[in-house]
């Protein structure tokens, strides 16, 4: 990851203009950002799974994963759910308004290492956003991978993120299995937690299958447990963790989990490196 590229100056804030706002769901929107001034040397380079610090002067910063195609050279996309002060304030901005951005930071999904494998993506809720760059990348390089499956869980049918893209993903070779916690009358799909689908998934060769998960921590833990039960060891499971982040470069200490700084060693981590730590309460 990041081989050869010099790290970005940690406190450098780039002014970026909101070039587009795509309303996704109630309280969720995707923002397209373009550099308002001269772009930094690295331009829009990023790795699937990396994040930016989005900055609103006077309000603060929030660590938000990149959710767009990481090969695009015309801007960055962030899919944001209203959660705290920064995202609430952001939701009041319009196309043309400016914000500050630092990044991208962190280690992403090691998609190159997954070549030749079957890949199962497991996402919950807004957790699909940091996984969308992988989906684009895997489908672009479809022939390099085996079976590709997305298991996606949302609360209700109306909160399935990016649902308009599923047909395209399906047609390009990704099996999309969506499930909801609460069905509506018109819902004919699956019901219940994502692990129910993972438990039943046809996994002919677990020793060459990779599972990548992003969602609530407990969902990722159960996903890893299901994977283990299906013969997929913890070193073949990758998760993306969320913690308080203030610096994004391993200086502030807020995001520590045992020997990891999530901002620097993560947010994407191999499950065997953190599984025992995640089991300890309040670590």
């Amino acid at each position: 990851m990041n081989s050869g590229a010099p790290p970005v100056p940690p406190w450098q804030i780039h002014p970026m203009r909101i070039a587009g706002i795509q309303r996704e769901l109630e309280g969720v929107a995707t923002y397209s950002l373009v550099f308002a001034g001269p772009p930094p040397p690295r331009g829009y380079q990023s790795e699937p799974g990396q994040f930016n610090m989005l900055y609103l002067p006077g309000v603060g910063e929030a660590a938000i994963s990149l959710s767009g195609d990481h090969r695009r050279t015309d801007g960055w996309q962030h899919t944001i759910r209203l959660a705290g002060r920064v995202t609430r304030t952001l939701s009041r901005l319009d196309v043309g308004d400016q914000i500050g951005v630092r990044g991208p930071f962190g280690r992403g999904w090691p998609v190159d290492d997954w070549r030749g494998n079957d890949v199962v993506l497991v996402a919950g809720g807004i957790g699909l956003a940091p996984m969308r760059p992988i989906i684009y990348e895997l489908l672009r390089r479809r022939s390099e991978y085996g079976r590709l499956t997305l298991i996606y869980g949302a609360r209700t049918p109306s909160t399935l993120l990016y649902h308009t893209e599923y047909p395209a993903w399906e047609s390009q070779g990704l099996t999309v299995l969506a499930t909801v916690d609460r069905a509506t009358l018109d819902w004919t799909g699956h019901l219940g937690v994502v692990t129910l689908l993972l438990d039943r998934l046809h996994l002919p060769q677990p020793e060459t299958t990779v599972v990548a998960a992003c969602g609530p921590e407990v969902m990722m833990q159960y996903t890893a447990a299901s994977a283990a039960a299906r013969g997929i060891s913890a070193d073949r499971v990758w998760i993306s963790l969320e913690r308080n982040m203030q610096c994004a470069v391993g200086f502030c200490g807020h995001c520590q989990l045992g020997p990891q700084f999530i901002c620097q060693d993560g947010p994407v981590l191999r499950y065997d490196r953190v599984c025992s730590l995640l089991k300890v309460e309040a670590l």
Partner: protein
Amino acid sequence: MSNTGHPEVAESLPPPLWLSPKDRFQQVIDELRQQGYTVVGPTISQQAIVYDEIDRIEQLPRGWTDVQGAGVYRLQQRQDESWFGYVVGPHSWKKFLYPPILRLSAATPTASGWQFDRLTDDPPRYAFLGVRSCEIAAMEVQDRVLMQGAYIDDAYRRRREEAFLLAVNCTLSGANCFCTSMQTGPRCTAGFDLAITETPEGFVVETGSARGRDVVAACDVRPATKAELAAAAAAQQQAVDQQTKRLDTADLPRLLMANLDHPRWQEVGNRCLSCTNCTMVCPTCFCCSVEEVPDLNSGRVERQRKWDSCFHEEFSNLNGRPVRPDIPSRYRQWLTHKLATWHDQFGTSGCVGCGRCITWCPVGIDLTEEVAALRETTA
């Protein structure tokens, strides 16, 4: 550094020098100031020996010592006129190299949005006078965190690279010192520009760098005699002999991480006030927060980095709720980071054995006792 492309051949250290009478130490301060350094050294303030700007030897805590215990710090008059007859106080050099408040950037409103400027300051060139061996070790620990990782803290680096270190070899140990356990002292072996050892008649001066040699060249020194060196060695040995506190570091990282559910965390958490004192006085703790500081008149907003502590409840806040909501979990975070996971992250312990966290804990929690208790009843 030689410019031949070969590593510098370890030259034999220049012979130690002798500075006497002691009042001639003023020459060292004068020369440092002459060379443009801001001299910071030990001085008495608010009933403690703290580090502050000084320019005269009269400001040094001559004839005073610090009596320390768990949750105890008292200044006491010595029977002799020792200038450096104390150990370490509430301050560490961290406050100069890693300022408690640092301005990072400014956002200025413009017609179309914001202009963002990185703020860099012009720190003084510090000469630290009276640096102890454990404190050199602490700086080297922070170097690894702030200068030797993927990202570099530029404000720290500029201060650190310029700083002149005048070290003092300890000639006594306090009740909370355990540098011998951490192998960080009491004798200064490297990392200084000058290192002095105090004897009743004068100072033995070792030079550790060209900068150091340059400074003593302006002072009335001569090569130390065998007797003077012997007196200095005896004084240094006192610090070793007096040291009673121990921390058994054998297999410590594994021991701690294998005992994250040990009942001792609850027990110590019941005593701990989560006051953050230990992290504030610790010379290696580096946790910080970033705050917005708006100017309501101009609309300009600054971002400031401030020392923070893993003992604050909101430190670990995630989506409005703390990951570590109780004191036992926060004490465990601090101790396991300091003594265990620091090794994973930075290849060294985060503890240098200075004992400040024991002295300045209002309820006298002693990490060496906590480790011993965990060790005795290990899972």
